C-alpha cells in the first residue's frame, strides 16, 4: 500500500457506503458455507464410521426351532464360525444383552420368557481380511434355523444416503460460492461506479491498470477476510452449540451411532480455510472485474 508519511493512501474510501452491507453479506455467506461444510464433514465422518463398523462385523441369527435345542444350535454355529478363515471372534449374546437390545421396542420385563426370541451371535472380522460370505452362509445352512446377516443391505442403504446428503452439501457449497462471486462482482462494479471519478483521475494522471486493481484487491481482501472471520466465529458458536445440545439429548452411552459434531481437529482446519478462500475469491474477483472495467476506459 502506498503511504504518505505514516498515513496510508487508499484510493477507495474505507467508509465506503457499500462497506457495512458488504461485510454483512460476506459474513452471512461465510457463515452458511462454514455450517454446510461442518455438516458435510460430520456426515462424511458418520457415514464412513457406520460403514466401517458394519463392514467389520456380521450377525448370525439362530431362530427358535423344534429340530434342535437352543444350546446345541448355538454350539454348532459357533463351531462353524470359530474355524472359519478371516473371522477374528464370534460371541453369542447373553440373554441380558438380547433383552437390552429389545428394551427400546418392548420395554422392560421378562420378554425373553414369553417370546421366541432368536439367539444372536456377533461375529467380528479380522482387520483387512475378507470373508467368503456365500460359502459361510452355505456352511451355516447345516445348522437348523441359522441365517447370516453380513449387513450388506444396511451398508448399501447408508452409503447411498450418505452419498446423496454429501452431494446436496457440496451443491449448496457450490451455490454459496457462486452467490459470493456474484455479490463481489456486483459490489466491485458498484464501487467502481461510485468511485468512477477517482478511478478516472488516477487513470488520467498516469496510474497503471494494475496499480488501480491492486487498490481494489486490497480493499476486497480485507473485506473478504473480515467478513469471513465473522462468519467463521458465528458458525463455530452454532456448531458447538448444536454439538452440546445433541450430546445432552442423546445422553451417555449413545455415542456408537450418534454423530460427533466438530469432533476432529481436521474439521476445524477445513473451516478455517473457508474465510481464507473467501478472501482469495474476493480478491481475485475484484481484480478481474476492475481490470475488465478499466480496460474499457480510453
Amino acid at each position, binding site marked *: 500500500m502506498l503511504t*504518505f508519511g505514516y498515513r496510508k493512501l487508499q484510493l477507495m*474510501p474505507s467508509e465506503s457506503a457499500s462497506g457495512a452491507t458488504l461485510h454483512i453479506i460476506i459474513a452471512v455467506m461465510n457463515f452458511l458455507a462454514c455450517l454446510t461444510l461442518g455438516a458435510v464433514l460430520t456426515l462424511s465422518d458418520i457415514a464412513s464410521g457406520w460403514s466401517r463398523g458394519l463392514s467389520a462385523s456380521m450377525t448370525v441369527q439362530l431362530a427358535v426351532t423344534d429340530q434342535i435345542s437352543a444350546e446345541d444350535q448355538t454350539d454348532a454355529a459357533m463351531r462353524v464360525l470359530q474355524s472359519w478363515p478371516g473371522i477374528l471372534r464370534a460371541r453369542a449374546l447373553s440373554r441380558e444383552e438380547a433383552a437390552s437390545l429389545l428394551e427400546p421396542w418392548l420395554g422392560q420385563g421378562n420378554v425373553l420368557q414369553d417370546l421366541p426370541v432368536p439367539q444372536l451371535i456377533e461375529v467380528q472380522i479380522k482387520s483387512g481380511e475378507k470373508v467368503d460370505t456365500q460359502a459361510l452362509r452355505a456352511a451355516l445352512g447345516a445348522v437348523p434355523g441359522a441365517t447370516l446377516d453380513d449387513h450388506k443391505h444396511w451398508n448399501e442403504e447408508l452409503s447411498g444416503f450418505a452419498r446423496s446428503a454429501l452431494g446436496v452439501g457440496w451443491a449448496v457449497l457450490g451455490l454459496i460460492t457462486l452467490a459470493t462471486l456474484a455479490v463481489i462482482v456486483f459490489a466491485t462494479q458498484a464501487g467502481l461506479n461510485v468511485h468512477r471519478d477517482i478511478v*478516472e483521475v*488516477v487513470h488520467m494522471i498516469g496510474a497503471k491498470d494494475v496499480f488501480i486493481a491492486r487498490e481494489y484487491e486490497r480493499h476486497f481482501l480485507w473485506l473478504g477476510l473480515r467478513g469471513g472471520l465473522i462468519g467463521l466465529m458465528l458458525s463455530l458458536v452454532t456448531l458447538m452449540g448444536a454439538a452440546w445440545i445433541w450430546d445432552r439429548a442423546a445422553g451417555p452411552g449413545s455415542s456408537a451411532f450418534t454423530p460427533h459434531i466438530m469432533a476432529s481437529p481436521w474439521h476445524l482446519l477445513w473451516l478455517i480455510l473457508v474465510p481464507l478462500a473467501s478472501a482469495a475469491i474476493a480478491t481475485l474477483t475484484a481484480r478481474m472485474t476492475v481490470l475488465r472495467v478499466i480496460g474499457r476506459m*480510453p
Partner: protein
Amino acid sequence: MRYGMGPEVLRDVSFSLEAGSLQLLTGPSGAGKTTLLRLLYLAEHQTRGLISLFGKDISTLSKAETPMLRRKIGVVFQDFRLIEHLTVYENVALPRKIAQEDERLYRAEVEELLEWVGLGQRQNAKPATLSGGEKQRVAIARAVVAKPDLLLADEPTGNVDPEIGERILRLFLELNRLGTCVMIATHDQNILDRVNARVFRLGEGRLTMLPPKPQHLAF
C-alpha cells in the same frame, strides 16, 4: 471527433505544439475546447484523423505505453476532480506517488508549491472544506507538481480572484519558460489580452490560429 452518433464536435483541426511553446485556446461555449483537451490528454479516442503526441501515434499506443505518456502531461480539469477523501497535500503529491517516487525527494517541493499557490496552511484540509478558488489552486498544483512536458489547463482562472489568477498565470508562464509546453483553454479576456502567446480559436468545430500580437504584454 464525434460522440456516439451525434454531430461532429471537431473537424478540420490541424496544429502542432512545439516543445516549450505557449498557446491559448479560446472560443464560445460548446465550441469543443474541452473535447480538444480531452483528446490531448488521452481521455477520448478520435473518431477519425491522426493525433501524435511526443512523436507517437496515439492510436497505436499499447496499454503499457499509455500511462507513461500520460505522466508527461499535466491536466487542470475544469471541474478540479480532486479526490475528496485525500488531503490537499495528498492530492497534490498524487502524480509523484503514482510515479513511485520517494516521498523524501518531493515532500519539500510539494510543500513549497502549496505555499506558492497560497495553500501552505491548508495542507491537511480535505477538498470538501475548501472554497472554489482553493480547489482550483490544488488542481493546478497537482497538474504541475511532476513538471510535465505538456500542461493542459481548462479555464484555470475561472474560479479565482484576480490576484490569485495572476499568480497562477505567472506559475504557468514560469513553467513555460522552464521548457513546458502550455495550452490554456480560457474565456478570460484579460489573459487573452495580456499573455504573449499563439491563440487557437475554435468555432463551429473548426480551428483557426492567430499569431501573437505585438501589443500583447507579457507578465
